[in-house]
């Protein structure tokens, strides 16, 4: 069922690109390809090539488990808290929390690994390359 949904989504994307390309961007404009030229051709081909999988369905080679979602949640939390605590502190906290909760590390070990990794990132990207990371209320 999941495979069929993926194929349908691919087909919808192809159809959307083809239809929008044709109706809004133009296939052929002023004796040359318009903005919709490539989207119409490729969108149509994508739509056609996704049909066999819609009809037959596909089997996944990996079973999706709850753990697969953890990195997504982690990254989203980093985005959410970066503007509050600053990106460097958030990344450090993320490392420490991840190591304690999922890695089963002791708090001191997790703190050493988390702080040292973040310190390397800070030196390379912030001090050496001057990347303007979100600083948060603490200004770090």
């Amino acid at each position: 069922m999941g495979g069929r949904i993926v194929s349908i989504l691919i087909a919808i994307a192809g159809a959307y690109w083809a239809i929008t390309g044709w109706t809004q961007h133009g296939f052929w404009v002023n004796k040359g390809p318009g903005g919709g030229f490539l989207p119409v051709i490729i969108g149509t081909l994508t739509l056609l090539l996704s049909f066999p999988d819609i009809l037959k369905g596909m089997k996944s080679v990996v079973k999706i488990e709850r753990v697969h979602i953890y990195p997504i949640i982690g990254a989203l939390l980093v985005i959410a808290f970066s503007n509050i605590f600053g990106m460097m502190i958030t990344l450090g906290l993320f490392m420490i929390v991840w190591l304690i909760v999922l890695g089963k590390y002791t708090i001191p070990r997790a703190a050493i690994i988390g702080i040292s990794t973040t310190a390397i990132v800070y030196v390379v990207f912030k001090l050496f390359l001057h990347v303007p990371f979100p600083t948060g209320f603490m200004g770090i």
Partner: protein
Amino acid sequence: MDIFQYLLQGFSVALSFQNLLAAVVGALLGIFVGGLPGLGSVTGVALLLPITFNMDPTTGIIMLAGLYYGTMYGGSYTAILVNIPGESSSITTALDGYPLAKKGLAGKALFTSNMSSFIGGTIGILILTFMGPLLARVGLAFGPPEIAAIILLALCSIGWLFGENPRKGLVSTFIGILLATIGVDMALGQPRFTFGSINLLEGISFVSLVIGMFGFCQIMELMTEKQTIQKDMKKITLRETFLTKSEMKRIVAPSVRTGLLGSFVGILPGAGATTGSMFSYILEKRVGKNRDEMGKGAIEGVAAAEAGNNATAVGAFAPLLSLGIPGSGTTAVLLGGLIMWGLKPGPMLFQQNPDLVWGLISSMYIGNLISLAASFAIIPFLVYFIRIPNSVMIPIIILLCIIGAYTESNNMFDVWLMIAGGVIAFILTIYQYPIAPLLLSFILAPMLEFAVRQSFDISNGDPAIFVRGPITITVLSIIVLFIISPLIIKLFKKNKTIEIKDDDLAG
């Protein structure tokens, strides 16, 4: 003066203390920058450019050139060790490099990468030395229709060559092309498929997409992998990373042929090291002896990708120096630097500034050797990285993915894109859609669209322009052969089976 005398003169310039130091610093910085996800050669050269303004132009350009090809070495490290290409040109390196690392052969993959980078780079430098100006003129014969035909050939190839199922490979290729059309249409100034987002007006950031689809997707896969530390990696030494005689033999031929191809791709306008490494990988996948193993962890795959991208990086200097036309994004930044130093790249540069041109070319021989030595020296430290357990490695890679995506344009939107890319790649991967064609077509699609439009502009809308020149006719014939050959082979095999069955029945 003949070329050898010019070269000797160049070596006398390049071997001066300050120029040698510039080459060393440039190469080392390049290896470092290349290894950092999110920072490519363009960013590296752009960051170093202001520092070189106070230097002598020859010293400055030697340092920048060193950084450029140094990034080609460094870009492969993270691609091999953690499946995050440090440089976009290392996508193809990751295809075989990471599976090799998973088999416990990270050291050999790194050795292959360094060795083939050196071979490819040396071929590129030799070609630049002896045939640079001539090749640059050949490159000019490739106008928009020829470039469009070549890109079309590449697009047809990548879908068929990657993964088990060619149809899924093609779907993946097409998704990449569709994603590439997001953003403002540069020819008409019209936003396309931006869904009202200001952040998407510039299109999807390629770096974020690569980091997401390779690195972040990899993390999601690693979450369920229990066995991680390769037992035989624990005591690995530099000696153990060396290739055996037979392994060296296996990488020489791919490195040489892709070095030659990469040098040629380098002279084509607009084609950078990513295109070079991709064409090289495709060539090896078509003609290589071990082509069936490529994509599963073959040293030939790493060799082809790395020799190709280094040769392309050097090849791109030919049109820059002889014609003043940048062959890649990085050489476009270098062109800006040359102009700011008051130099005029073009045919007169060789006559008016021989010290600069030949000093630069000679410094490439030295810089290539320095990069090779430095790369070998850091292999033991790099291999140590793979011994880090998954429980620590996963948050480190997530951190690198976030930093790499953010650094691309200092915008949190790119981090969102990276996560989205990772999720999409994970879903596509578990349904056996290969990811590499998607990323490679994403790079090529804008070039194709641009070349097709230019061709129609030149011909006033007449499609016959694509069958007028000998180059386009040849390339289009290859495309037709390429598409119909699997059908012919299938038909041939079917007839043979029927004949055998008939013989069996008669017997």
